[in-house]
Every structure is written in C-alpha cells, then in structure tokens.
C-alpha cells in the first residue's frame, strides 16, 4: 500500500444527479438488511437471541433463575454473568457485558435467551427471573451535580479554553447577554433498529467470527471487538451491505453486538441473530446527553462582541465516558478578543451516551445562536447585521486563516431568497387570524473532517471496467452512488464502468460513516488509488492489475482552518389560543465545497433541516430519575416530525470547489443541516410572540397566554 499525493479531478459525473445505484434493490425490497441474510450467505438456521435487561439502575445481580425460561418450548440456552464466555479485555464498560454481577444502569444487559424462534426467545426472556441487590442511584442531571471535569471532550478536544480576560471584558461591556439554555435528552432512532447476525467457524486451524451488522463502520466493529475477544483483526469479518440509517447511533458497536457474538460462541457454530427492539434502543444504543449552556456575551453598543463565555453542563455514564463537545462551535464562530469555554459533567448511573447527529454543534449552536438573537435585540440590530459585524479575519480558535469562510454570503443569499427584508424589526407584530407570525435566522457551521486510515483498491476488469474497493458503509446517505461518481471521474470512465465494492471488513480499511467525513475520507483514498493505478498501469490496462493506495496528507492544507457554513431561515406561526407552533417555511443556504451529487446532497441537507425542526419542536426523551431509564421509549411518545409538520423545507448551496481540502473539491455534507436549525426556529417563535423560550423543545405550553 502506498501513500499517494492526489491531484484535483475534473468533474464529469461529479456534479450530476446520478440516480442512486442501489435504488432499484431498495425499492423492490431486494436489499438485505442485517437480519435478513439467509443460508446463501452463511446464515443457515439461525437461533434468535433476546436481551434480558436490568430493572434497577445500580447494584448487583444476586441471582438469575433460568429454569422457567429453559422449560419454555424452543428456548435452547440462557446466558448470564455466571456462564457467559469470558472476554480478554473488559475496559470498555459498555461492551463488556455479562462479565460480572454489577449493574451500572437501568436497561443494561443482564442475561441472554437463545431460542429457535424470536417469539420463543422473547417469551423466554420474559420468564427469566432476575433478583437484584439494589443500591441508591443518581440519574438526574442538575446544575449542582455536573461538576466533574473530563480530560477531553469528544472526540479529542480540550475540555476548557480561556483567552484574554473574560470577566473583566464582561464587567465593562456596554451590552451583556447572560442566559442559560437547555436542550433535552434526544435519541437517534434510525428507522432500522440495531441488529446483528454472528457465527463462529474454524478456518485453517484458526477461529473465525463472521458477522452481518447494522453499523456505520465495519472496520470499527472489528477493531472494537477483536481485542476483547482475544482475536487478531483478520479473524473477524463484518459486513453491512445495507443499513437503514444510523445518525451516529451505529457509529460504534454497542452492547447488543457483543451480546450476539457471545451468544454465538456457545452454539457450536450455529449462527445467531438479534434485533434490538425500539424500546431497548432507548437504553442500549446511544443518545445525546441533555445540556445546560450558561452563555455570557459582552458587546459594544454597536454589537461587536468583546467577550464570549460558554460554560456547559451535561452528563455521562459511570459505565463509559462520553463528553459531548457542546461548546466547540463557540470556539470558532465569531470574533471576540476575550473568550472562555468549559464542559462539566454529571457522572450518572445511566445508559451510555454517544454520537448523535452533530454532537456538540447541535446543542451548542442552539445556545449560542439564540443568545446572538438576544444580543441583536439588546443592541437594536438586525440579526444578520449583528453576525456580519462579528465576522473574524482568522479562525478565532487556531489563529489560522479560514480556507473558505462564506458565512456572510450564506446569510445574504438566504435573506434574499427568504424575503428577510420585509421583516418587521419588532417582535409580536403580525397576527394572521389566530396565528402570530415571525421569522428567525441562525448561522450554521460544521468542521470539515477527513479521517485517517482509509485505503482503496482499483482493479482492472474485462471490457474497460474497474472494480473499486473500500470497506466503507452506505448508511442510506447515497455513499455508494457518490463514490461511484468519484471513482468514475478519477479513472476518467463512465459510472457504469465502475463496480464498487464496499461494506466488508475484508476490503481495504475505511473510517466510520460519521462526522460528515465519509465522502471526503473515502473519496480521497479512491482518487489516490485511481491516480496511482493510472500512473502504474496506464490508460488501457490489461485485466487483473491492481493498485492499492491511500491519500497522503497535503502539508499545505495544514496552514488553513477548514469549516463548512450555512444560514438557516425559519418562519414560525404560534397559535394565540393554544400555543401550538407550526413552521411553514424553513430554508437553508450552505457552503460545503463542491456538491458531488445534487440529488443526494439535497436529501442530506433537507433531511438535516427536518431533523433540526424535529429537535426544535418535538424531540425529548424523558428520563425518570426515580428509575433511571427513559420512559418515553417508543415513537408514539418520542415525537419526531410527521409529514404534516414538514412544509416548505428547502436547501441550496453556493457554487464552489475546495480543492485544498479534497481532490474532489468537496468538504462533506450531512450534519450541517441540523446545526443552527433549532435556533432559527426558536428565534422565529420569539419574533412571532415576544416570548423568549430558552429550552428545547418549543412545545405549546411555553406560549400559552
């Protein structure tokens, strides 16, 4: 494998709305998701596994009585901490299940039931009798218990930052906004629940573990599991040909994956499969912590910021740490000489939080961008003018120049399309029948990320065709399609001449489909391999030649800060009798580098806007601190936007190409659509009603008069 410096590629298929290459399989139902694989792929006569989960939040399992379960027809085995296979490593507390009797949160896996059918397994699970020695637990995030300072915040950022003299600057600031903003627990809830199939076999005298998993990264699953199981990575094979969404919750292996693997270890080679229920997803597959953001903005009367402080309180789990990087966007968004950010956590006896769509940026930008709206009001400025006045010359966080910062253009372009100029400056100025009407704006930003560890392989086939292989996963975003386009343009052939092989850990390694980094990271590796292939084998290669390469870092790019930007505009209507909020218009304008496929890009951005709308108005997981688990644990009680809520939602982007970042000119699309959206909606509800709501979701009760 070689590291190859890439050159920019000439877009031909890139920039066109190539149909999704896997569209026909999906709409005809032929695409097989994790638990749907059959005997032709090695999954013959699988046993079903059902999880038994704890009904206390903290303590010990004193006894597991499997006798009634084992007596149930079809049940073949019950595993608990006394008889489950042992792991080699147990430091990942989320994955090291059934290794001891400790219970760290309500909903933790305490036993597994294997059975001939999923129905028998489920009934068996209900018949397992678990006794506990409970201990007092703490499951509530409060300002007075979120005091623990983590070493870093996700993924490896500084916990605190402090520049200048924030307190002095705030004390002397002519205008001060000092408020606390809150976001609730949120759950990712992809359409396809988490699911895994696993079986063990022997191959040339070595154990081999094979899996189908609904995951955002097959190599990540191998890397997480192999050392825990005492295996070399090449003894584990994970495939994920189709995945029904993840939104971060499938970014890392969760406990159910280990449950399936442990169960499969006991069946003498017979495959086992497990699909997590929707209710179980609320304690086992990750979520976003609730956040409390204490914001202080100091500014001159002209709105120019002199000081920004963002102090975050949130939670993690005692079982495994995850510290959401909530203040991270505040570090780079606007200019101000004095700036301070911090993160403090409550370590609770609760399920393990994890990545959820724009971790950090999403809750952090809600706080910051509502605070900016409050500052605009305090200074008597249009919110767009306020943001223009606080544009930094250099990245406030690193001091580097931005490669391409077009936030102001996004704001201006959006204002023009949205009709911002007609907006009355005062809130509570327009009543249409029973509805107060208002508009709001917010900035969006998301870092452009390229992950290390990506390699691609190009192989010449008969008839001028090529196989392009990389182990990346298409979680429904359209990655299969855009990687085909990138490969085609990099090889200078038609997309139909590219046979893309993905989603298998036997293929060259690929980073996770997360952080909006997939297309940049995998695409750059594909371009590197394609360009090296051409250099080695020419334009008309014999069939069967291949080249494997990864993209070398471009040292020149070290000089820049790379971020995407956007501006979100919302119109809100608030019923003057009932307080109900509806959002008839939601428009975003984005600067994201070159758009590789306008159709799939639009789906990502519009989808992000809808997700942001959903967070603005509805999404909230209610954790009952008395029990420790989320009690709104299905889609009838955890509300996401319905069709009737999604009206005129639209996204557009600035034409551009960022070749300093990737040879395709793209920077990454996905999470930026959700960032800022909730703030834009909240700001619009303030403009409509004059009532400032500083916590999500913006439910009707806040606006009752």
């Amino acid at each position, binding site marked *: 494998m070689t590291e190859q410096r890439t050159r920019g590629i000439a877009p031909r298929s890139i920039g066109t709305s190539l149909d999704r290459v896997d569209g026909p399989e999906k709409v005809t139902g032929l695409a097989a998701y994790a638990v749907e694989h059959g005997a032709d792929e090695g999954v013959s006569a699988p046993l079903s596994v059902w999880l038994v989960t704890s*009904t206390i939040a903290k303590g010990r399992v004193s006894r597991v009585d499997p006798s009634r379960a084992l007596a149930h*027809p*079809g049940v073949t085995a019950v595993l608990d901490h006394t008889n489950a296979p042992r792991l080699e490593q147990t430091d990942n507390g989320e994955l090291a299940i059934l290794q001891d009797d400790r219970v760290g949160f309500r909903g933790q896996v305490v036993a597994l039931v294997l059975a001939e059918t999923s129905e028998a397994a489920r*009934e068996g699970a209900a018949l397992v009798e678990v006794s506990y020695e409970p201990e007092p637990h703490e499951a509530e995030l409060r300002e007075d218990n979120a005091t623990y300072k983590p070493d870093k915040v996700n993924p490896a950022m500084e916990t605190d930052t402090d520049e200048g003299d924030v307190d002095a600057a705030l004390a002397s600031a002519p205008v001060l906004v000092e408020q606390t903003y809150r976001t609730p627990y949120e759950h990712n809830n992809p359409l396809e629940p988490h699911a895994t199939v696993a079986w063990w076999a022997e191959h040339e005298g070595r154990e081999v573990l094979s899996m189908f998993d609904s995951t955002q990264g097959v190599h990540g699953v191998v890397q997480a599991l192999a050392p825990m199981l005492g295996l070399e990575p090449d003894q584990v094979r994970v495939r994920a040909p189709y995945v029904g969404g993840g939104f971060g919750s499938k970014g890392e292996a969760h406990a159910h994956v280990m449950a399936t693997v442990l169960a499969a270890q006991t069946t003498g080679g017979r495959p086992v499969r497990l699909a997590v229920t929707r209710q179980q997803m609320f304690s086992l597959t990750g979520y976003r912590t609730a956040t409390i953001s204490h914001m202080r903005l100091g500014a001159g009367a002209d709105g120019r910021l002199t000081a920004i402080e963002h102090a975050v309180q949130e939670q993690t789990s005692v079982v495994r740490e995850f510290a959401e990087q909530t203040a991270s966007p505040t570090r780079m968004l606007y200019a101000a000489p004095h700036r301070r950010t911090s993160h403090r956590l409550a370590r609770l006896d609760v399920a393990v939080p994890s990545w959820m769509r724009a971790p950090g940026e999403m809750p952090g930008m809600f706080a910051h961008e509502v605070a900016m709206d409050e500052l605009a009001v305090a200074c008597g400025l249009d919110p767009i003018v306020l943001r223009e006045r606080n544009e930094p010359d250099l990245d406030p966080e690193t001091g580097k120049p931005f490669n391409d910062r077009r936030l102001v253009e996004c704001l201006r372009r959006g204002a023009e399309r949205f009709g911002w100029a007609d907006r009355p400056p005062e809130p509570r100025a327009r009543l249409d029948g029973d509805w107060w009407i208002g508009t709001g704006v917010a900035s969006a930003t998301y870092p452009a990320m390229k992950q290390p560890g990506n390699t691609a392989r190009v192989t010449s086939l008969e008839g001028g065709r090529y196989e392009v292989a990389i182990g990346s996963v298409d979680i429904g975003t359209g990655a299969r399609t855009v990687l085909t386009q990138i490969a085609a343009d990099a090889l200078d052939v038609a997309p139909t001449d590219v046979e893309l092989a993905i989603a298998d850990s036997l293929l060259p390694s690929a980073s996770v489909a997360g952080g909006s980094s997939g297309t940049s990271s995998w695409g750059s590796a594909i371009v590197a391999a394609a360009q090296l292939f051409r250099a080695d084998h020419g334009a008309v290669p014999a069939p069967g030649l291949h080249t494997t390469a990864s993209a070398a870092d471009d040292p020149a790019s070290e000089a820049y800060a790379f971020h995407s930007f956007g501006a979100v505009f919302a119109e809100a209507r608030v019923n003057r009798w*009932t307080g109900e909020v509806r959002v008839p218009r939601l428009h975003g304008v984005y600067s994201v580098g070159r758009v590789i496929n306008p159709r799939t890009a639009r789906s990502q951005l519009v989808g992000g806007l809808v997700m942001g709308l959903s967070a603005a108005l*509805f999404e909230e997981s209610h954790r009952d601190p008395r029990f420790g688990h989320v009690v709104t*644990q299905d889609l009838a009680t955890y509300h996401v936007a319905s069709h009737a*809520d999604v009206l005129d939602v639209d996204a557009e982007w600035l034409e551009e190409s960022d070749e300093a970042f990737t040879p395709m000119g793209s920077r990454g699309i996905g999470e930026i659509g959700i960032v800022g959206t909730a703030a834009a909606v909240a700001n619009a509800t303030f403009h409509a009603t004059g009532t400032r709501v500083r916590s999500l979701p913006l439910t009707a009760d806040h606006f009752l008069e």
Partner: protein
Amino acid sequence: MRALDYRRPESAQEAVELVSSHPGARYLAGGSNLVDHLKLGVAAPDVLVDVSRLPLDDVEEVEGEDGAVLRIGANVRNSDLAAHPVVRSRFPVVARATLAGASGQIRNQATTAGNLLQRTRCVYFQDVTTACNKRKPGTGCSALGGYARYNAILGASAHCVTTHPSDLAVGLAAVDATVVVLGVEGERRIRLEDLHRLPGDRPEADTTLAASDLITAVELPMVDTDTRSTYAKVRDRASFAFALVSVAATLRMEGDRVGEVRIAWGGVAHKPWRARRAEAALTGGGIEEDAVRAAVDEELATATTDDGTAYKVAMVRNTTTMTLLRLAGEVRR
C-alpha cells in the same frame, strides 16, 4: 412463544358466550391497541375472540325509543365513520374528532368500539418494569411524581392520574351518544358519559362494562340542523399525536342567546369530561370571551395540577374559548 387460542364467532351472541365462558378471553377488533399490548406484555389473554368480521358495520338512521338516531355499528372503521355523509353534515364534531385521531393507516384498521375501549397511553402503564395500579392493581402509581405531561387534572385519584386517550369518545360525549351493549343477560343501552369511569380506587376498570360485554353499536340522537359542532385538538405535532387537551362542542343559538351548548374535554381526565357546569353557566347568555373563560373556570374549580400538568388549565380555557367563539361566529354568519 405464548400459545393463544384464536376464535372467530359467527354471531354476536356466540361471541358473548365465548368470552363469558373463558376468563382469559378478550375481544379482538382492529387489533391496533390490543396487539401492541400483547407484545408489550401489558395484556396476556389466552383466547382472542375476533369480532371484527361480525356484520356490525352499518351506519344508518333508525327510529329509537326517544326519536331518530344515527346508529353506528361497532365495527365501522374510523376512516369510514369520519367520511360518512350524515356524520359529516350533522355531526361534524364526531367526524373531526375521529379524523384528529392517530394516522390514516391506523384509522383504516381501528373500529368504533375498539377506539372507545382503547386503553391509556400512560408510559408507565405500557412499561411492565414499572408499577401501575391500572395494569397490576395494588402495585402503586408511577405516574404520580413521574412523567406528567399527559396526566389528568380533573377527577384523578391517589391510585391513578392518567387520561383516556380517545378523541372519538370526546366527540361522542358532546352529542349525548348511547352505547348499545350485548351482555350475558341480553342487550342494554348505556350513556356514553357513563361508559368510562373515574379511577377512584379501582383504576384497573376503565369502563363500567363487564369483560364479556360486547359493544354492538353507538347511537347518536339526531340533532336539529341549526346545531353547529366542532372539535379542536391541541398537540405539539401537527398530526399523529395524542391530545394535550381537546374540546368537543355543540352550540345552538336562539338569537344572541345560547339555546343549548354541550362541551366535552379530552386529555383532562380518566374519561371524556362533560363540562356540565360550564354548559349551565353559558346557557341563556351570550358567547363572549370573558363569559366563556368564566364558565370554564367554574368547571375547573376542582382541578388539581402539578408542574407537569399546570399548563393544561390555561390550555383548556383558551381552547374552549376559541372553539365556542368560532362556533358562535359560524352561527351568526
């Protein structure tokens, strides 16, 4: 897997006999509530008596004992009920309440009787790992001091604070509907208002029916053409959400004065709440904003709230005011 006996009786009579002779038997109609409960472990019947194919699916005007009624068969699907021309023209409150419920797919599946007898959506009732007096009498009420957003503010007890989730039932309460029941001792009629009960110390009983009582129809006394009616449902999500509160109202004006007003509330109690005190306060007067607010406050005099439900007082007051002002506007027009 739990073995279940599934029976499909030929007649209503046979259905009643089957359920009365099997203590563990339950009627099954569209299944959109009961099947969920089987999966969640909330219900564990050993016999399902499928009544959905019994010929109880007509909507027809018939002569009742006290005059003409619109008779709606127990198996009329929610979608068909909402679309029926007589329901739409004479009982808009019923059509709108039905359409306000669930989603298109569920309304295609859900039956009239099944809708009335759907059980609470209280998150603790549906979570078998928490205590619930309604699911398991005597275990305690987890909703007290817990997630309260959908809890009752009227008529709750120390044993249960939940609300009845049906929209249709609220619409029917406002039009003085009667439920036709076939029991082991033959047919009888119950006022819809008396079908559901307050929890008291027996929250396990949602209704006054016996387990083997089969609802065969619902009857709506025909109304004058000068009676207007409508249904307002308040919810955060624009569709596919249970009511935070809802208001069903009918109004007949005599000149500028209220001839007859009927008001029923959803989302506030263990049953559709007929606001009789408010009705009495308004009858004979005009429909003005202050008068409606005052009448509502009279009805709410006994309301009890906590942090989670406090919002409902203002929400019910405002929504009732909005609804009656709209109806009065329609009348004057």
